[in-house]
């Protein structure tokens, strides 16, 4: 099986509220999969379970052959899942470069004693890390912004920096939570191209939560639709566009309430 990630009957309850209800979900290797649905459909909750922010109430999540259900976020990141946040969560008072360096945390080895002594090996590691961080910034379209504080970057660049920072964790799977929210059409187009390049140039799989249907239909191999915590449809972008239940959920004919 060439599935990078498999979620089986994953469920999350908050008190009495079922946010995500027994969802089965897979992400094949080197694919771009989108998760769509109206607000409050449980997309971000699902996302947060994949990345370990929430513990699923029930179900199993396997990534690259390892059961990651209930593992802490940093361990899942270390295994190769990078993510961005719906509301940008950069380290605002660190520079762009430092943000990316934090992303490399799990891939670097500098411990306490070596950091204090600043051994040649450590200096080399830091130098290589910095070079790689600059490269990632350039790749993400942030050339020359290295020493700018994250909070001083324009909105679109902050989104890019989040991606650069996530790439720094050296993921096999990148989870993007509404990456084009708040972008103008030109920025959105550029970003869509960027996501495609991630797969072709970096060999990544991408899971995308997105509201902009042009982006979803443009880049996805497959689309999954959630509504009220349930999976109501799954298929190629074409199939989804013509799915009765999806149209109903989005247009809200009143039948769903």
């Amino acid at each position, binding site marked *: 099986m060439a599935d990078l990630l498999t979620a089986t009957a994953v469920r999350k309850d908050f008190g009495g509220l079922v946010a995500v209800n027994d969802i089965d979900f897979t992400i094949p290797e080197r694919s771009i999969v989108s998760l769509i649905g109206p607000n409050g459909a449980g997309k971000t909750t699902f996302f947060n379970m994949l990345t370990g922010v929430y513990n699923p109430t029930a179900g199993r999540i396997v990534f690259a052959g390892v059961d990651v259900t209930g593992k*802490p976020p940093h361990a899942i990141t270390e295994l190769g899942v990078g993510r961005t946040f719906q509301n940008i969560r950069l380290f605002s*008072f660190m520079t762009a470069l430092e943000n990316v360096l934090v992303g490399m945390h799990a891939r*670097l080895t*500098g411990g306490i004693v070596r950091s204090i002594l600043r051994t040649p090996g450590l200096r080399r590691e830091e130098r290589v890390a910095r070079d790689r961080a600059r490269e990632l910034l350039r790749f993400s379209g942030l050339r020359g912004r290295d020493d700018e504080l994250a909070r001083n970057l324009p909105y679109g660049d902050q989104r890019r920096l989040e991606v650069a*920072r996530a790439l720094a964790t050296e993921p096999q799977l990148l989870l993007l939570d509404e990456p084009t929210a708040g972008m103008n059409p030109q920025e959105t187009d550029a970003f869509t191209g960027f996501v495609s390049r991630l797969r072709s140039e970096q060999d990544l799989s991408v899971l995308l939560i997105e509201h902009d249907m042009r982006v979803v239909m443009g880049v996805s191999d497959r689309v999954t639709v959630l509504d009220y915590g349930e999976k109501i449809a799954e298929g190629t972008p074409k199939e989804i566009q013509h799915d009765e239940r999806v149209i109903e959920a989005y247009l809200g004919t009143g039948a769903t309430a």
Partner: protein
Amino acid sequence: MAREQRATGGGGGRAALLARTTLERLRSRAFLLVAIGLLLFYPSYVDSAQDLELMGEFFPSLNSMVIMIVFTMMAVGLNIVVGYAGLLDLGYVAFYAAGAYTAAWFASLQFEQVTFHFGAVGVSEDLPGIHISIWLVLLLAALFTTVVGIMIGLPTLRLRGDYLAIVTLGFGEIIPQFVRNGDSIAGFDLTHGTFGISPIDSPGFGSTLNDTFGLPESYRQATNAQELFFWTAVVLLLFTVFCSVRLRDSRLGRAWIAIREDETAAAAMGVPLMRTKTWAYALGAFFGGIAGAYYASFKSGAFPADFYFNISIFLLCMVILGGIGSVWGVIVGGMVLGWLNVEGLATIGSKVNEATGIDFEVPKYQFGIYGFIIVLMMLFRPVGLIPERRHQRELEEGVHDEPLYDATHEGN
């Protein structure tokens, strides 16, 4: 990705910038060297400084300087926890106590059941009790206190900020109470109760050291023990500062700052929250332990009355006054408050009373004064006297301090 293309940056502006930063760095280095020089040579000019008119009384004695430096060292250690990692620790005094009692156990008459000597200088061979060279004891204290720090940290560091603060306060109270009641633990006298343990061996700046380093004859006299205590304290402080600065600029330091700014994002970037926080705690404890042990040796005793909540707050006040997260600020804050504590308040008080003819015991209200400093600083200059640049902006503009992910299910 085109790896061969090196980032070259834009031409001339870059060179000018480089020159300017080099100059700045030189200037700060020079300033630092002068400060260290002034400190190191303090013993040689303290007497003449104290003879100065009007000003003289404001120069602390050499003994007071040692105390000031030891407390500053603790403040720099606390700054790793509070300043770098953003974990409010209200029980740092526990580490001070752990360090002091390590010294008391391994370099005094406390355990007279055994007689064990190892490298202790200037202690008569047949003296009962464990007597290990203070230099080794400093190391032991550091390790023991680190373990204590980890033990306190593991269950508590997953708590949210204000709860963590209260829990550390709890440990800061439990440990001294344990020490006070520890004179009969299942019949065994571990801590000698409220009397404390005294005397504790001095580091023995004696023949061994002098022979090893070939110091001149004049340094073998007992009369300059004070100066040696002073210089050792300075060296320990410099060591703490050096480690603390190096750590700040390391992978771990970046992770601490990331956690301080946004825990959720830090965890998502692969920073293990518990481990990273525990390291901050352990390192803070490490330096607290050395300082505690050294101080115990300096004053030749460890007494439970020294380890009360107010000391934790006193240290916190040093960090706040100087600038949370700013090493240089904390040193200034530490020296200023340390001076106020040992001499300054008394000196100022007597001057004020002389001038106004009232009779007001200033030192009695020292903690009220520190409380006042804390409130004033938090209200009007939360970044401290010498702020760390990054922290200044954080405090002025606010950060995500409501974690989405509260680490409650993280096992490390």
